[in-house]
């Protein structure tokens, strides 16, 4: 839920910044927090790579987790 939390935070920053008569230091702090946050979510999405694993079960009932190669099947 990291991306979801970041989005919520961004929404909050934006609406606070758009309030009139915001003190300068607060505006600067929000600005400095908001833009890198937006950029970092985008970077995270750009970097993201789908992870696929298959979950099997042994006869003892323990899990056996293996990477799944789509092309090997």
């Amino acid at each position: 839920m990291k991306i979801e939390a970041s989005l919520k935070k961004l929404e909050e920053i934006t609406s606070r910044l758009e309030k009139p008569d915001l003190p300068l230091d607060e505006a600067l702090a929000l600005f400095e927090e908001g833009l890198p946050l937006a950029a970092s979510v985008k970077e995270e999405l750009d970097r993201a790579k789908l992870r696929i694993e298959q979950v099997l079960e042994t006869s003892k009932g323990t899990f056996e987790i293996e990477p799944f190669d789509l092309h090997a099947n």
Partner: protein
Amino acid sequence: MSSPGHVFTVSELNRAARELLEAAFGEVWVQGEITDLTRAPSGHLYFTLKDGGGELDAVRFRSRSALLADAAVAPGTVVLALGKLTVYEPRGRYQFVTTLIQPIRAGALRLAFEQLKQKLEQEGLFSPDRKAPIPAFPERIGVITSRSGAAIRDIVSVLERRWPAVAIALFPSSVQGETAPAELRAALERAIRFSREVAPIDTLIVGRGGGSAEDLAAFNDEALARAIAACPIPILSAVGHEIDFSIADFVADRRAPTPSAAAELAVPSREDLVARLDGAAARIARAAGATFRARRQALRSLLRTSLFRIPERRVETLDQQLDQLVSAAVRGVVAVWEKRRRAARHAEDVLRLSNPALPLERGYSLTFVSGSRRPLRAAEEVREGEILETRLGRGRLRSRVEEVNRE
């Protein structure tokens, strides 16, 4: 060994057999139960007619008049079919080419389906308030399907494009045949236990790619339906194609028409999110910029009033510091726009993927009430007897509504 008289080529013999069969029977009615029904992308229907003693390959070629009657062509239905017995020469197989199909009664498979559906519905298992919402930003999606089928490939390819920021946990199971219902249930239990003990699963997709009604029958199993209804993790069902409905679809938290569609429903769209982020960045830059400019102006006039008695040189230094602050802010904005420009490179892909004609090429269609430009989304938007216009990948259809089923 006697020398052969006339020697046929294979093609000659097939042709002669075809002519003989066609002449001997002409147009005939035949009664039988439909099995192994396949709808070819061309629109032709291939199926087998059978009774207790034998089977007959049958085909129904696509034609304008065939479209309406096709609804009656369902596996398990006993039908009266009118047609000609002929030989399909390239394969040397004889087959029945039908032009008219009339259902007599629903087959055993269909009856069992309807009975189970009714029973579970009466128990309240399909009730909307039982349905859990599908999480908007899942981190791990569990997929219960065959490891070698089309479903997992389709799901992976949609997620790779649309939202790669997710992990897939595949719980392999056979999806057809006698053991499939029990295997699917075991896989479901394994997924629930995995979610509790190893890593939480946000959404489960249960399904398989298209197949004949017999192939999809595992998803009409009562015990599986109850397990899906009781599952604590939100479940998307994705069984077969758009036209296939299974019991699993009714008990799942949400039905997806295909495995690809399930993947689309399970995650947000990367493009939408990037647009939202860019919008937020632009709003932040605009709001902050307005504040900075207003304050700078106020400060500058303040510095220049004689009240402060600050030497002009000091005023200039302060002014310069202000400029530096503002340009640092602007650099921040520029960095965001740089990223945005990179995102624009994806715009071409987005355009291509959002071309409304593309899904039509894949067999989906757009239907309008005649004269309206808004595509139909729900059965309740039309009344019986209304004329509909349908846009297909190639060509259009005009049809009249026979029945409105709001379900």
